[in-house]
């Protein structure tokens, strides 16, 4: 066991540990760059090999041939695809994502405007998924095949199988139309000025500027979309947590802990949870990606001015610079999420960071 070895020969062990953890991180970082390059090639190829001409899509029925030719020249569409890709990557390295065909603004500027809204929504959904999913999973494992387990199972089954757009429409119908409890959509009430823009996350910005009115209002608007978006992840996390908890509950060290006279709560949270959490953590990383994907539908239903809606509108109008920008950003965030999970994973489980 490396950790015990460290106690014996700390200098050598630290060297090995450092090298191993360092290579572990490096491998992951190289992987991220590789995936991003792959994503850029695939999205570029797809968006440039479609049979439809983006110039016709953008300019429409009335455009003259000259206007179309001018458009193609402006966006470099008259050059060979390979050359277009090289130009794209060169610009990308200068942090230039090109100009959106639809909004006619720099794509980077659009992303900066719309991404924080999606991030805020996804983070809120993730927080809800963790706060509900983990306790539900533990509860269900501890009371295996008894009423709590059945409740959680039904809850998870419903969450895992309901399409998000249907759930969203029903939620609006119930909580806005019938009960008048929550707003139908948007990030803030009409006529309420957003907080001073620091991060673009309204909740955080309201906190930073001490604006309690927008804080309360933005949280209020966040509840319904975050619950809808987070439901699926909650279900997945609860089920995952349950199964890994079940595995852990019968381990020797749990029995030992109990034998030492620890209270059941202490045993489960202190000894069981930390071990059972590792597989769930992997799922959380993957879930984060599905949250970004689910945001597309949630944002449409809740008129949430985020990246999902931007992406849909861009794709419909064949706005390839915007689609490329969104895809790269989404891929990057997804990879970053998994990278953070990897680190947390290594932190939780010494076997991983030691490469054994």
């Amino acid at each position, binding site marked *: 066991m490396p950790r015990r070895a460290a106690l014996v020969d700390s200098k050598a062990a630290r060297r090995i540990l450092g090298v191993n953890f360092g290579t572990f991180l490096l491998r992951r970082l190289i992987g991220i760059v590789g995936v991003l390059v792959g994503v850029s090639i695939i999205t570029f190829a797809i968006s440039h090999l479609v049979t439809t001409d983006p110039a016709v899509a953008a300019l429409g029925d009335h455009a*003259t041939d000259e206007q179309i030719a001018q458009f193609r020249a402006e966006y470099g569409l008259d050059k060979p695809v390979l050359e277009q890709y090289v130009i794209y990557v060169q610009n990308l390295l200068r942090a230039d994502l090109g100009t959106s065909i639809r*909004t006619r603004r720099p794509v980077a500027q659009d992303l900066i405007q*719309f991404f924080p809204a999606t991030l805020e929504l996804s983070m809120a959904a993730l927080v809800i998924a963790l706060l509900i999913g983990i306790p539900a999973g533990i509860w269900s494992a501890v009371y295996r095949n008894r009423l709590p387990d059945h409740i959680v199972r039904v809850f998870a089954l419903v969450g895992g199988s309901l399409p998000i757009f249907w759930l969203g429409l029903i939620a609006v119908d119930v909580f806005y139309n019938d009960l008048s409890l929550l707003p139908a959509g948007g990030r803030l009430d*009409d*006529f309420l000025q957003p907080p001073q823009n620091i991060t673009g996350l309204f909740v955080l910005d309201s906190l930073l500027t001490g604006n309690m009115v927008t804080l309360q209002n933005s949280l209020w608007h966040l509840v319904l979309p975050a619950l809808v978006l987070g439901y699926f992840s909650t279900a997945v996390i609860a089920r995952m947590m349950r199964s890994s908890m079940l595995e852990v509950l019968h381990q020797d060290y749990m029995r030992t802990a109990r034998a030492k006279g620890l209270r059941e709560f202490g045993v489960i949270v202190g000894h069981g949870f930390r071990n059972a959490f590792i597989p769930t953590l992997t799922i959380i990383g993957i879930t984060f990606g599905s949250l970004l994907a689910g945001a597309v539908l949630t944002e449409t*239903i*809740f008129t949430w001015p985020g990246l999902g809606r931007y992406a849909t509108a861009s794709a419909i109008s064949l706005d390839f610079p915007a689609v490329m920008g969104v895809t790269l950003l989404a891929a990057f965030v997804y990879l970053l999420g998994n990278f953070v999970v990897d680190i947390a994973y290594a932190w939780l489980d010494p076997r991983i960071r030691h490469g054994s």
Partner: protein
Amino acid sequence: MQNKRKTTPRALVLAGVLGILIAALALAACGGVPANVQPTIQAAAQTAQAVAPTVQAAVTNIAPTVQAAAQTAQAQVTQLAPTVQAIATTVAPTVAAVATQAAGGQPSGTLTYASNIDDIVSLDPAIAYEFSGVVTDHNVYEGLVQFIGSDLANLKPALADKWDIKDAGDKWELTFTLRDGAKFSTGNPVTADDVVFSIQRAIALNKSPAFLYIDIAKLTQDSVVAKDPKTVVITMPKDASPQALLTIFTFTLGGIVDSKEAKAHEKDGDFGSGWLLDHSAGTGPYMIDHWTKDVEVLLKANPNASVQPKLAQVLIKHIPESNNQQSQLEKGDVDVAQNLTPEQIGDVTKKPGVTFAKGNSLLLFYVGMNVTVKPLDNEKVREAIRTVIDYDGITKDLLSGNGTKWQTVIPNGLLGANPDAPFQQDIEAAKALLKEAGVEGGFEIELGVPTGAAPGGVAWADLAAKVQSDLDQVGIKANIKQVAQAELLTNYRAQKGQLTMILWGPDFPDPDANVGPWTDYAAKSIAYRNAWDDKDAAAQGRAAALETDPAKRAAAYKTLTDYILHKGPYAVLYQPTQLFALRDNVKGFEWNPMGYADFWTISK
């Protein structure tokens, strides 16, 4: 907006009392009290509405305080005895809502207009050419001339109170005399220099709508001259239509911009377009308060406008999902919903407090027939196709009345519109025509159609299926090829279509915007796409476009549209109407077929 519950009469009284208190407070802050303050709820509501614009500025400062007070009150109330608490929970949100309303949060003088506005690129009138930008700018800028309400046939004065078209030998000369006393929202007076600047900057910027000046009216920057501070002279080449230019001036592109203000914000020779992206400097009844992309546009009354709007503000709210528009309209959170489907309109108008309005459009749905594809090259075959289609079935059953049967190429609403509709399904006549053409048993052909929903609320696929089954009656087997509109257009533009089902809307409200593209093969538009090269029709079209006498012009278009009806490569199916759902207290909403409404005439 949250916490809006059913209000009891008691709650209304309380809310009214609080409303009066706050209105009085706000008035005191402004230093004026109207004489008609009466302690009734109705009067309080009226007063609040009347004073809203004035009070608003003063009140914005105290708004947070009032709001905070309302919240504190709500918090304190909840600690009271259970009975009181029950009443309080019902009342508090209403009170808070009223407080916010009076405190400039949401004044009663606001029209909330729900629409999908993600198409806005810029609100600069020289750049805006998308639906939502046009709706907005129409209410912010004025042109030299205008159409009023939904009328598109009678030009009325706007910034110019007189105009004159002179045949100056080798060119047209148009002279405009500006109205006295016109002022921009910035306070600057309107001069001929502003008109010259506005037209020149649109030509120089050369964005989406600029072709109307450059290609249609054939203007250059030198065509526009300020003769004196009140007179503008525009010269046009003889082959361009002065009538067309006048109708272009009614459109957003013709909006006159304050040249001093625009120049003050000019950056890198952009003629101020960076600033005009989300600011305004026009003479229209409203001015732009702000535009947040994909969230909202807020318009506020322009104090210098010659016509004062009935409502102090218009909030154009981005709600892309029609379901959301529907539920927020039902709740009364929005006043007008623009993008509901006919089924949704049917549902929503059954609810109390909701009604609907119909607006005309200038769109024409048609089937184009490529005359290089056999047997469509035969006029009789094309006539047979026109004869076998069940037009009444399309408008009555498929569109449930949201479209009118229209068969000529100038849409209803424009000068020269020809209401003749000789075709309705006649299977025997169609069979006879096919027999004459030598294709008695019918033939096989491809029918291209876009994906998705078509304006008027019908799916393109359903429309295509209907036409397919009609054609099948005489043995014409149409194979439907449904592709994305952009892909369909790519094919169609390259003369690769066979039968193509698509729609067309004019670029400017003049018959030439349709007749030109539909008759002139050289214009490389619709006639070209269907490979219909009829020199005579094209010549007649050009002559009609240049005719300056409206009566003679209309007569020329009557002859020409009758000719195209039977000789052309088109089967025009119908002209759709557009439906809007409104709260029933919204008065004065009238949709102009060019795609906008005069918000300033709306009250509620």
